[in-house]
């Protein structure tokens, strides 16, 4: 089947909350998802990502705006008329039906022939690695197996789009990593357009073609994981994708496409980002913890710092350290190569100009 696009055109949705009254869950969201693309809606809880997904599915109707799947305006269609595959956070398997009957359900509803159903079900169960589980019931399966049944049930009807609502949040950490790989492979094998909701940035970065970061009912930024990490357009995105140190700097000079900044008493040549700045202005920049380099012997151009706290995590070591009266966090990877430092130790700290990013807001 040909993959289709999804287009959200300025959709909004409000809910009646028992305590807070009318709250806006999604406001004026527009989004274009390309055919065959895997797009993730990422954000903290309550940001409107699930509501957005449920509107695409047809479980909620937007108060305003239109939703298109392919060229078709589906805003007024019920969920059962949209031909979508939905994977729920709690799997929502039918507890009274066997694995076979769960998967066959959508095909029976369509009125498919018995022989065809048999064939389709056994194919899709093979695809998710559950052949032989036909007669089991949901409560006899492990969390990972239930997840696969939910996946099989969603794809067997050959939906136009696949929608995932935090499908991995009930699994343990190892299985989560494994399943996200399987979901990605399945989506690519079927070359189907997919929208995925999660609050886990690592999961989002691992699984998606593109990520839309949401906050307070709005999309803050849409882009590839790399773009969001390297060139966040807002403090919120910078903070949500990875960690940052926010520092104050002074503009010493303006050049074409770049700024000369004074940060913690040293000058750095940085990209200006957006906006225009004047000499002498003060602005905010961010540096990610992994951008700092810590050395035992301080070179001339390095800051002099003191280690305050150390957290050893194996692949990396997190430090809290003090430079010029400011507390910053730093992460040093590969302790074999860089060694570790102890609290109280005086160290040299370096950072490259490219790693300093000007914050817009």
């Amino acid at each position, binding site marked *: 089947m040909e993959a289709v696009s999804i287009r959200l055109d300025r959709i909004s949705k409000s809910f*009646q*909350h028992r305590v807070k009254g009318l709250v806006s869950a999604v406001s004026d969201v527009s989004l274009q998802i390309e055919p065959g693309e895997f797009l993730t809606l990422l954000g903290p809880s309550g940001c409107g990502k699930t509501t957005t997904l449920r509107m695409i599915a047809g479980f909620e109707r937007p108060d305003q705006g239109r939703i298109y799947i392919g060229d078709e305006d589906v805003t007024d269609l019920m969920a*059962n*008329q949209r031909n*979508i595959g939905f994977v729920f956070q709690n799997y929502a398997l*039918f*507890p*009274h039906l066997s694995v076979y009957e769960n998967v066959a359900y*959508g095909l029976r509803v369509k009125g498919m022939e018995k022989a065809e159903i048999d064939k389709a079900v056994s194919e899709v169960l093979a695809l998710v690695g559950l052949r032989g589980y036909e007669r089991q019931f949901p409560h006899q399966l492990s969390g990972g197996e239930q997840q696969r049944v939910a996946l099989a*049930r969603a794809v067997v009807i050959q939906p136009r789009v696949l929608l995932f609502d935090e499908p991995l949040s009930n699994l343990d950490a190892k299985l989560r990593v494994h399943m996200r790989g399987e979901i990605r492979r399945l989506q690519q094998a079927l070359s189907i357009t997919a929208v995925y909701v999660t609050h886990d940035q690592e999961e989002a970065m691992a699984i998606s073609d593109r990520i839309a970061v949401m906050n307070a009912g709005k999309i803050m930024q849409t882009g590839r994981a790399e773009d969001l990490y390297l060139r966040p357009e807002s403090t919120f995105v910078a903070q949500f994708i990875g960690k940052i140190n926010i520092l104050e700097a002074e503009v010493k000079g303006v050049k074409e496409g770049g700024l000369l900044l004074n940060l913690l008493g040293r000058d750095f040549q940085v990209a200006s980002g957006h906006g225009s700045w004047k000499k002498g202005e003060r602005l905010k920049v961010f540096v990610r913890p992994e951008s700092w380099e810590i050395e035992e012997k301080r070179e001339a151009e390095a800051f002099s710092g003191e280690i305050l706290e150390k957290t050893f995590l194996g692949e990396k070591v997190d430090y809290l350290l003090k430079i010029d009266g400011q507390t910053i966090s730093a992460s040093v990877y590969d302790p074999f190569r860089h060694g570790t430092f102890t609290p109280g130790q005086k160290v040299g700290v370096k950072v490259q100009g490219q790693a300093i990013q000007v914050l817009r807001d």
Partner: protein
Amino acid sequence: MPVSSVTANPSDRFRRVLRDPPLLISLLALWLLLGLFILFPLIKLLLRTFEEGGRFTLANVAAILADPNQRQALWNSLLLGTLVGGFGTALGFLFAFTAVRANLSKGWTAFLDGAIILPLISPPFTTAIAMIFSFGPRGLITHDLLGVKGFTVYGLHSTLFSETITYFPIAYLTLKAILAGIDPNVEDMAFSLGSSRWRVFRTVTLPLAVPGLANAFLLLFAASLADFATPLILAGNSFPVLPTQAYLQITGLFDLKGGAVLSFVLLIPAFVVFLLQRFWVSRKYYVTITGKAGAATEIKSVPPWARHLLLGVCFAISAFILYFYVLLFYASIVRAFGADFSLTAKHYGVVFTEGLKAIRDTLIIAGVGMPIGGIYSILLGYLVTKKVFPSRQAMEIVSMVNYSLPGTIVGIAYLLAFNDPPLVLTGTAIIIIACYVFRYGPTGIRTTVAILQQIDPSIEEASSSLGAGSGTTFRRITLPLILPAFFAGLGVVFIRSMTAISATIFLISINWTLITVRILEKMTELELGVAAAFSVLVVVIVFAVILAISFFLRLFRQPGGPEMANILGG
């Protein structure tokens, strides 16, 4: 995340209903039935009580309250209810605590459960009859065993004893659920903080069970207040209570108005209990605080000597209950209990000749009421949980009214409502069936609601996302999931049709009579052997039906489906 859709304004809800014809028709039909069989009789009762020549008057109520005899009956009813509530709750807690905390083996648990379920499925007189066989003028214990002379079985003491034995299983079931719901980790925690066993019980276990105790007390108080059969047989002349007074007023003195006013007086405490349960106790329940239930640890809160004491008391009481039933059976197969102990089948002969009509009538009424009750329960339960419509909460409350009221009130209200045009049903089977369906349907309704609330909305959404319309989703997903509630609903209607008497004693006629009424008649005619034989028959039939229903429940067992014992407890 999302709480509820913005469909809160009433006119929008109303329009939605209009757009959904099957919903609209179901609602109209249900309201018509609820109005006819619940509200209309109640209004008739109030009119009879407060209207005189087209004017409002308090004279009727004042007249009853001025009569020292009736005042005494009111006082006696409240006293009996309080005592039964207190003793029954204590006994129920003892059994529940033992069952949950004493690490019983499977066989002993089954023995306790069996002894406890017997009073729940018996016709209301059973313990009363056994009391007379045991403690009456020629009773096995008082006369033959102890040789006591001049012991009167009739009065407050026997009524209290009999009602406590009959109703404490309700407290047991309520409290067992509460105690089992207390996370053992909470008690372990108190231990780890250095408390003694007794202190843990006093400061943690008991306070957590308080809402359950209050609820059990109210349930027993209401059951005793409504009980008509036990006092009729055991209370005697010296201890009149309201339900029997109302009954005698109508059947003895043919004073319908007096009966109506008396039952109104009975309605006031019953209504207070209803309000307390609905708006006070239900809010006091402690929700399970932790997300994940603690591991089932070896429960350490009972020291060995206390465990033995608890077990001893429980088994003694269970054995006593079983003794009552053995006695009942024995009395049904001897010529004349207390005088002539030679074996005979003549009592059963009477049951299956002279009593055949009552058996047939009862089975027809129970058999017809059963499916109607089942359908009524799941339909109403489904609508009030899953659909949004105006008057939803009102419908739920009204559906519970006949269940909450003492049977005597319901019976007299039906008698008043359906004796005259526009709807004359007196003397028909319909009036008895309607009484049972609307009085005992609520158990099924509550089971339906409980099951539906456990079904995650995403299950129905999943069906929808797979292309199923709302009709298909209901038929293939929702309906199979609430099937246990259907069986529960029809099971309770059947069982109560076999065993109830307080409401229907006012509704029987020459055309349609009931086994329970025949038992009462045989008691008053002093044909105790026949009464015992009828009782044994009812217990056997009900037991067979329970087995059948349990079988169906197991067949359609869903995770989280109801247990038969819990259904009976409601």
